[in-house]
């Protein structure tokens, strides 16, 4: 069954023709061409496919396109603030929070969501929030560091307006 849906994708209202059974992940990558969102396990365990759906981090590999009419979706391609990288992106680069980079888009989306909810997370808060994001290069120490540094920068941006 195909269906015409309206979504807001990375801030832009778009209307797309979707097949109801298509996964959001495949809609993004194969139909719309936003290949930053990755498929890892395909079963909701690894978090590589994390996107924000109506402001909340979710696994796009477990969502059917047919239910998305009216949804607001943010992917890694929409993380930048204007022309500037988002502070979590900058911190991951600066701290070496990526090795092969495959898990990075998911890590970044989850980190952004965490810092919006909790601007001053402890290391344990960060590890708890990222427990559904798997890094097979085992780079967690630097990832946690990057999220902490991004938190500092985001708080600074906020106080300086």
């Amino acid at each position: 069954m195909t269906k015409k849906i309206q979504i807001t994708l990375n801030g832009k209202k778009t209307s797309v023709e979707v097949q109801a059974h298509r996964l959001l992940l495949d809609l993004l990558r194969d139909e719309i061409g936003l290949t930053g969102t990755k498929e890892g396990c395909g079963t909701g365990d690894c978090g590589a496919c994390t996107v924000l759906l109506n402001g909340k981090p979710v696994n796009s590999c477990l969502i059917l396109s047919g239910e998305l009419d009216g949804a607001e979706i943010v992917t890694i391609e929409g993380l930048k603030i204007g022309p500037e990288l988002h502070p979590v992106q900058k911190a991951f680069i600066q701290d070496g929070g990526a090795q092969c980079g495959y898990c990075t888009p998911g890590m970044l989306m989850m980190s952004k969501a965490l810092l919006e909810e909790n601007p001053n997370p402890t290391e344990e808060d960060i590890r708890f929030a990222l427990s559904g994001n798997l890094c097979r290069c085992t780079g967690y120490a630097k990832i946690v560091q990057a999220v902490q540094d991004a938190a500092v920068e985001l708080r600074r941006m906020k106080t300086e307006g």
Partner: protein
Amino acid sequence: MRRPEPLEIFQPASIREASAIVKEKGPGGRFLAGGTDLVIAMKEKGLSPKYVVDLKRVPNLSGICEEADGSLTIGALTTMREVETSPAVCKRFPFLAQSAAEVGSIQIRNRATIGGNMANATPSADVAPALLALEAGVKIAGAAGERTLNLGEFFRGPGQTAMLPEEILTAIVIPAAHPNLVGEYIKFSPREMMDLAYVGVAVALVLDGKKRCDAARIALGAVSPTPMRAPKAEAVIEKQILTEELAQRAGDEAARECKPISDVRSSAEYRRAMVGAMTKRALLNAAERPGPVAWTERRERRY
């Protein structure tokens, strides 16, 4: 990874409309809540429903409400993340909030619903033991109107419930609880996160000032075809002063009355032994250190 097969998707705006779609379309359809069990079944187990009825647009199926009679109603479509962070749940039943927080990851819990956890009827469903220990009921709506069942009567076997195909689980109702009620949920799994329970134990106790158990409810997950109460273990402690020795005896009794199987996670013998140890620990934890705990503390409470 395999993809779902083509299907039709409906987004009804009322329960009546949702039931009517199933009546009209006939067998071979599924309700959809968060999809964290359903889409997995399509991808991993070859399930290919002809049509899917998404319940997320039906008004009033989600949210948590403290009723005037002291009961707590949790809409079936309420997400695990909402249960985990709900001030009402955290205040009244911190161990229920914790059991919701044990499910998958934040990404999963933003989608997974409490109703889906019950309707899917997995023996290891994390929220089931706490709800059984709180003697929760479920509200079910269908063509013939609404009915209420005890959660214990709702589960019929692995993946089996008392619902008819066109019936919808609308809410979970936790009856008014004694103000002194304390509880604990221990999810026993060697991994800190992202694994199913090898054994789940929930206890709810009403203790007087001298640690005498005026009421005791013990419920177990992942050790029988459905989540279960352990009435013989409850009888060991009811009306008794809770001591370490008594908690041990209750644990031994729970280990005898559960019916575990062996699978990839664990042997039946190991599960049985862990039911004994975790029941004892849950009882002592509930009596001594009630209240919400950080996840880092949970692992200490297990050992």
